[in-house]
């Protein structure tokens, strides 16, 4: 068992899996979902047995299955993070044009992304730390952020230095404006609503005040006005 203090200083693989497991719990059957690199990728293996969820990868896969045993991996089949993957019965393979038709055309029910910062109006910053980045790389993040019907963010609540990643205004370059609908951290599950951040679930033994203390923006309690 990891302590609340551990979760506050940032989770290891177990903690990251715990975040991913909450997300997997909340994805209904039948959704089409793209998973970003990092914690989001872990979601794919954690969907409850028997629930059919279709995972999409922007390099042309719909219907990815569990991660393969390394020795049995098909080297021709990789996901957006270039990791080997498997296919479920019913999977399909296609090119980048059709893949981004799915993404940009609003056909994905959900995309789960990592983030550097999320602002209380739903702004997302997850691709670059400055306008003078020495090696900027955006990948499919901007397309996914504007294209999927819902954006959920999976991230540690603070940086390793303890700085809140939930903010009033993003300081890093934006990926997209006003797109994040929900955030899963090691401390809480938080909806982005018209009034800002709304805590809908506290993780284990962490209380609301502790999460607020770690957050650089006002948190609201669900079902409590103001």
């Amino acid at each position: 068992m990891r302590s609340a203090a551990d979760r506050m200083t940032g989770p290891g693989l177990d903690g990251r899996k715990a975040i991913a497991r909450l997300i997997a719990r909340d994805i209904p059957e039948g959704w089409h979902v793209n998973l970003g690199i990092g914690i989001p990728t872990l979601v794919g293996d954690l969907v409850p047995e028997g629930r059919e969820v279709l995972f999409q990868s922007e390099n042309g896969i719909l219907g990815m299955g569990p991660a393969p045993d390394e020795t049995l991996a098909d080297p021709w089949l990789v996901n957006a993070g270039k990791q080997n993957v498997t296919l479920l019965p019913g999977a399909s393979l296609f090119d980048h044009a059709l893949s981004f038709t799915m993404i940009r055309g609003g056909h994905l029910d959900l995309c789960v992304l990592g983030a550097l910062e999320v602002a209380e109006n739903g702004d997302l910053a997850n691709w670059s730390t400055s306008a003078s980045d020495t090696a900027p790389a955006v990948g499919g993040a901007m397309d996914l952020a504007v294209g999927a019907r819902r954006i959920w963010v999976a991230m540690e609540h603070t940086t390793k230095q303890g700085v809140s990643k939930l903010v009033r205004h993003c300081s890093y370059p934006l990926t997209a404006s006003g797109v994040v609908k929900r955030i899963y951290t090691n401390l809480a599950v938080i909806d982005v609503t018209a009034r800002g951040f709304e805590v809908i679930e506290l993780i284990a033994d962490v209380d609301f005040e502790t999460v607020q203390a770690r957050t650089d923006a006002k948190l609201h309690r669900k079902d409590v006005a103001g």
Partner: protein
Amino acid sequence: MIDKRVATAAEALADVKDGSTVLVGGFGQVGHPMALIDGLIEHGAKDLTIVCNNAGIGTSGLPRLMKLGRVRKIVCSYPRTAAVFSELYAAGKLELEITPQGTLAERIRAGGAGIGGFYTRTGVGTLLAEGKETRDIGGVSYVLELPLKGDLALIEAWEADRWGNLIFRGSGQNFNPIMATAAEKTVVQVQKVHDLGTIEPTAVVTPSIFVDRIVEIPYAPPYQAISY
């Protein structure tokens, strides 16, 4: 378990609203979803906008829908396939938006792909570009065309699985794969539904994400194969 099969066209179309824009697949009678159009006729929805390359053939299907006065407007490239269309259009009882075939295809694709508009050389300097923005890009004249989306797409495929992966036969793809991407609800008429995994991942033409409902209609040749 995801299972998009419904028993009848009537069930698949139960929630169609008056005033809907309906994308209808097919080029001539190949890939043209006759059973679903019959279902739409039965359903009774009116004030429809139909997007289809042709206006149908003979008196069944789209011509019947038009004859019944249920179509307000038709968007197509080559309507001159049905006498009913010509009569209603000449009588001022049917609006027509005529669009070059490739532009029609690209507008539907844009609708499905989240593209807000695109520039094409097709139609520049012709009647069909009148009232549209033209623009010089790199010394070439282009006309701006806007995306086309449907409330409903009615398409025909050859075979499917319960998730909605589709394969097509012969020249039956035509507008069907792009229309499947461009509507709120995509209903497919297929000749056979297979077990999941029967269709190879590389063989899938329309991935299941684009399909909402599947109606199985037993194997039969296209409604009518006429040369004209």
